[in-house]
């Protein structure tokens, strides 16, 4: 038998989409990361099971962002609206993948945010979680979107953090933006010399609640974190959810494609 050709290594990217306008901006960013690399995308439209449960309660009312008035949300209406959003998300993904020439698939999943990360993270080199969904303040229409700039990465010296750093560097170069390193602990981030503008924020030994807050204040275009145990631990993830970052979060597990020769 002859020698088998090496299997193509594909970058597996899972993206949580909300079926909103923000999806397209996020997909544009991610496709720049995957440019010139074999990649396959998995789009995820997440349905919160808590909402379905709440709908069964007789007194539950929805306060619409559109009309500001409470209304009884029927399960059928909810299902229809979710279907519409999911379709939008799927179209956005399909379009982005087609431009890139990448494979893609799309799934609707029922999970809460933390459960989703636990569930999807192992199967993806990069799991992309969209910016925090609109919060209650959005009802008031005063929450102007912050101006985002830079690509931020949390670096604690762990192997996955190194992967995240390498990916962040690649992304920053791809989108011609600067790099923000949120350095946790004393482990120095290496290989940054000659890589354009890099801002390093020394956070010292901090818990992740504090890290996410700093990341929120920094307002980067994307935050990259390594999928190490500390991060995907429930408490960290709930803190991440609570921080309601204005940018997508990329949880990097696999090797940053193109960086290993």
């Amino acid at each position, binding site marked *: 038998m002859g020698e088998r050709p090496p299997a193509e290594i594909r970058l597996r990217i899972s993206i949580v989409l909300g079926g909103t306008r923000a999806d397209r901006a996020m997909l544009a960013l991610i496709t720049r990361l995957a440019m010139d690399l074999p990649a396959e995308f998995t789009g995820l439209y997440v349905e919160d099971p808590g909402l379905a449960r709440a709908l069964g309660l007789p007194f539950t*009312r929805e306060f619409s962002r559109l009309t500001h008035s409470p209304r009884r949300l029927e399960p059928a209406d909810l299902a229809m609206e979710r279907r519409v959003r999911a379709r939008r998300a799927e179209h956005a993904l399909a379009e982005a993948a087609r431009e890139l020439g990448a494979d893609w698939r799309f799934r609707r999943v029922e999970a809460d945010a933390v459960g989703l990360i636990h569930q999807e993270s192992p199967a993806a080199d990069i799991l992309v979680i969209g910016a925090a969904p609109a919060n209650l303040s959005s009802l008031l229409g005063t929450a102007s979107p912050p101006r985002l700039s830079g690509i931020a990465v949390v670096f604690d010296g762990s192997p996955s953090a190194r992967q995240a750093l390498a990916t962040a560097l690649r992304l920053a170069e791809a989108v011609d933006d600067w790099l923000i390193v949120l350095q946790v602990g004393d482990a120095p981030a290496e290989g940054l010399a000659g890589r354009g503008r890099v801002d390093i924020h020394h956070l010292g030994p901090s818990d992740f609640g504090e890290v996410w807050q700093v990341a929120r204040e920094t307002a980067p275009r994307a935050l990259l974190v390594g999928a190490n145990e500390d991060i995907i631990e429930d408490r960290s993830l709930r803190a991440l959810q609570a921080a309601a970052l204005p940018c997508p979060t990329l949880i990097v597990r696999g090797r940053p494609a193109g960086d290993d020769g």
Partner: protein
Amino acid sequence: MPAHQPLKATELYTPCDLDALGFETTDDLEPLDEVLGQERAVEAVHFGAGIPLEGYNLFVLGPPGSGRHSFVRQFLERRAAAESRPRDWCYVNNFEQSRAPRALSLPAGMGRAFREDIEHLIEEARSAIPAAFESEDYQTRRSAIEEELKEEQQNAINEIQEHAREKNIGIIPTPTGFAFAPIRDGETLSPKEFQELPEDERERIEKETEKLGEELRQVMREAPKRTRAVRKKIRELNREVTVFAVGSLIDELRERYQDLAPVVEHLEAMQQDIVDNVKLFIGQGEGSEEEQEQLQALAGADGSPAAQRYAVNLIVDHADNGGAPVVFEDHPTHNYLVGQVEHISHMGTLITDFSLIKAGALHQANGGYLVLDARRVLTEPFSWDALKRILKAGELRIQSPGQAYSLISTVSLEPEAIPLDVKIVLIGDRWLYYLLQALDPEFDKLFKVAADFDDQMDRNPDNVHGFARLLGNIAREEKLLPLTRDAVARVVEHSARHAGDAAKLSAEVRHAADVVREAHFWAAEAGHDRVSADDVQAAIDARLRRSGRIRDRLHEEILRETILVDTDGKATGQVNGLSVLMLGDSAFGKPSRITARIAMGSGQVVDIEREVELGGPIHSKGVMILAGFLAANYVTDRPLSLSATLVFEQSYGGIEGDSASTAELCALLSAIADTPLRQDLAITGSVNQRGRVQAIGGVNEKIEGFFDICQARGLTGDQGVLVPRANVKHLMLRRDVREAADRGAFHVYAVDTVDDALELLTGLPAGERDARGGFPEGSINRRIADRLVQLAEQRQAFSSSDEHEAD
């Protein structure tokens, strides 16, 4: 029979008295700075231009070439120069209603300064405002205001969230909003779990959820109020910053124009608008993109929307004028007269703004004089109505006919009306004036002063001298050779001839000017250093030659006897009449054979020209008078019992006028008397019912027309023309005619009555009624009377035999 003497050669022409001219050439003469022989019109223009009352506009009427235009121009320009300059006018943006631009007036000359001041202001503002808004201080203050709102709102939301947390109620995002639901251990309770709760707990949760909902609604209700408050604060901040940036500039202008309340008002409105539209200076803020694109399109590629919005469209600028304006609009279309709003094409649509308002002649003449050609105003669509409407309203409102008649649906402007104080001077033909008087009831309310330029003036020494100075003016102004005294005299004589009256001069200055110009040409051709009488004569002769093709053809056909006109011998019921043909600017006489035939009848004189509709009403009137003359003069005691026909032989065009009625009467009487008439004479003149020969027009051309034929056939010494005595004063005959008369080769007879004419034409005495009422034996009148009696008796006998036969 008294001998009828022909007129002397000196009576055929009134020469100009060379001695009275008193100069060598026209170079010796002072320029003429007044209009000649038009005292009535001058007085009217003076009155009309000076009277400052509504409706006292002028209509200057008179023949073309009479110098109306040049006089009106000179008069008005001289008058206007001594009057004060009217105010400048400009249109500016109406910031409250852009479709109705505001009109601002400023003292003469200040419009331009105002426009430059505003341009400077906007230029300054374009750098000062962005600098102020980009400053750290502004950004800090704005952020502080916005943060205050955010904080307030966030606190309110936080409070709700805190309450929810305390009550174990979660806030769950829905696809389009939020919902409150009870939670336990971070999980939303399912309906089953909820039902398992104690009843009081369920009630509590339900109430708490409802309460939270109410709190949220309350916060949402107040949110717009808070937002408005913040926007107001930001607007105030913007105003503060903008006013800081441009306030001093505007204050400076406000002070400069403090005496002009509307301008100050506009500056204040402009300051307010700059505050409201800071986006034009800093490239952001409220306002639609489309609006900005349109402003950019109107401003052009190099302009800025801000400069466009605040520009000053100076439509009337008197900065360079020395007095009141005098505007001559020779193309008075509606738009040129009233002004217009232009449009430009942008993205397939037509757009406009105040900067595209264009002034019309009325704007330019406001405060002064506007001179228009009446015929052109009347023939340009909508112009006459627009002019009247504006004069009646006393204000100038730009409105296109398309708008007025809803012909186009493009959105346009309704610029503020401008008060009008203008004197309109219409120049037109006399018939146009009378037509307007008759047909337009508004005309005499709006044009109360008529300045009627005469066709001619008295040929008195003053006017002759003035005429000479006028010729001098023409020669000087047009750099022509000077005219010698005898050349001037010849032009004066020619002018009298042109007027058709030896005692008058033609007021058609243009005609005399053309003769002078052409005489200059012939003088230059001949190498003369001044224009002599011969040069003038050469010019006159050349003009006649140039325009004489038809005359020569007609004369040729007479000489070749294609057209039958005898110039010798005698014939019964046949006479040579004379007519004048007017072709363009030339007129010439043509002899025509007129014949009459009679038969027994019932007193009808049939004008064949009229029967075939070739005779005009005046000609018919002349023929009808003949019947009256016949009946009253010859047969008063019995009915006129003849039937007569009269015709212009070989006439194929229309005949009008009564100048041939004497000739027709003579032909008729010749036919009745069966007495031949001399064919070497021609006759012209109208006649009344009493047989008196009356004056006619074109006497010179008529005499010359018959003379030319006679001369071509060879003058016999007997030939001549009979003219009404009333026309002797009009005689200005050609030199060759005068010379022939002087040597007795051709004669011009002046006649007073038909009897005079009959005696000359028949060689018989006319005869006067004696005491018994009869004419003397041998007289022509006796022959006529006898023949009429004879016809009457024959008719009576004929009637009697008819009755017998009937019995």
